[in-house]
């Protein structure tokens, strides 16, 4: 699972009002190279919760993202490269996603988060 997907996911257990961001428990992560497309990044930027991306990347040992970001930075190639790497090339392979409100743990195996809810969570 890429951090792009992590940045979109929110816990939807019944009654949870703030299920974002899911905390990452990283046992294993992998890097996969992806073609760079600055238009996509510029388009995506407005939808990204920056803080969550910074923290998620950090949990995989990637510290290059600036703490704060605004759209003026999209003119910098250097910034875009880092954004690209964090968003699309870092994958959570084994570990878990943890709901920030309930602490519920969604296990991640072979890169696939198990988001199935228990009966009483629906």
């Amino acid at each position: 699972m890429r951090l792009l997907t992590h940045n979109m996911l929110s816990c939807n257990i019944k009654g949870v009002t703030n299920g974002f961001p899911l905390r990452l428990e990283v046992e294993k992560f992998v890097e996969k190279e992806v073609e760079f497309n600055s238009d996509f990044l510029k388009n995506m930027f407005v939808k990204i919760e920056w803080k969550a991306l910074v923290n998620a990347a950090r949990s995989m040992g990637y510290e290059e993202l600036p703490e704060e970001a605004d759209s003026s930075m999209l003119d910098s190639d250097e910034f875009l490269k880092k954004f690209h790497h964090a968003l699309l090339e870092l994958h959570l392979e084994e570990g878990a996603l943890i709901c920030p409100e309930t602490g519920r743990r969604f296990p991640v195996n072979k890169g696939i988060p198990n988001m199935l809810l228990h009966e009483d969570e629906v």
Partner: protein
Amino acid sequence: MSSRPELQAPPEIFYNDAEARKYTSSSRITEIQAKLSERALELLALPNDDMPRLLLDIGCGSGLSGETLSENGHHWIGLDISQSMLNVALEREVEGDLLLSDMGQGLGFRDGVIDGAISISAVQQWLCNADKSCHNPRLRLKAFFGSLYRCLARGARAVLQVYPENIAQRELILGFAMRAGFAGGVVVDFPHSSKSRKEYLVLTCGPPSISTAVPNGKGEDEESCSDDESSGDEENQTVSISDRHRPRKKQKIGKKGRGREWVLKKKEQMRRKGNVVPPDTKYTARKRKDRF
């Protein structure tokens, strides 16, 4: 035995390892699913600007439908309830991210972040079933469409290719989509052919506008092969219900109910569509005794 898999077992059981492999290695199936996905992507009507979008593939299975999205340069997140199907997707090294998730429990995404969604041969089949005692199809449809509506960007579309079992089922699905706030309707390609006939629910997020008008189906004007056109069968056209505020059609039912003739006609229509319909007998449409 029915040829409809959803009537045989719940999806996570039906699509076990063996079935997932069989499904994905059939060249007939891969070809059909690729075609359906191409058409669904076309109906999504994304702006023609070569910009990669972030799309959902709901009931992505082994990634046959998602592959079409990748080929067209898009990023996608696929979700499916069958681990076996997702395992095959992993083996095939699909480019999308995968989630093990039950759409009937609602989709867990932030609001307004997704640029479009497709679902190929997954929604009706399984969502309308009550596989467990805790399954209420209505609640599941409501959770699904409500969460789908919320996670889509305003103006974004969802295109769901479906094989409804009957008209009532399609109406049920559409009804929940409309209640969630979607505008749109059904596009039927090749309505006159029982074999190539394909249905897509084309749903737009947000208030009705020009962009929510339902496009035409393919092959609509073709010569019909067997159907008599005069029957005015509304199912044989693109059915647009973008106008949600039209008055409900008055139901023409007499005191005695709809009567044998009406039932026979409906059964004939369903047969022509290739549905399995019980034979007509002297009991057909006979009134039941009121005893409980």
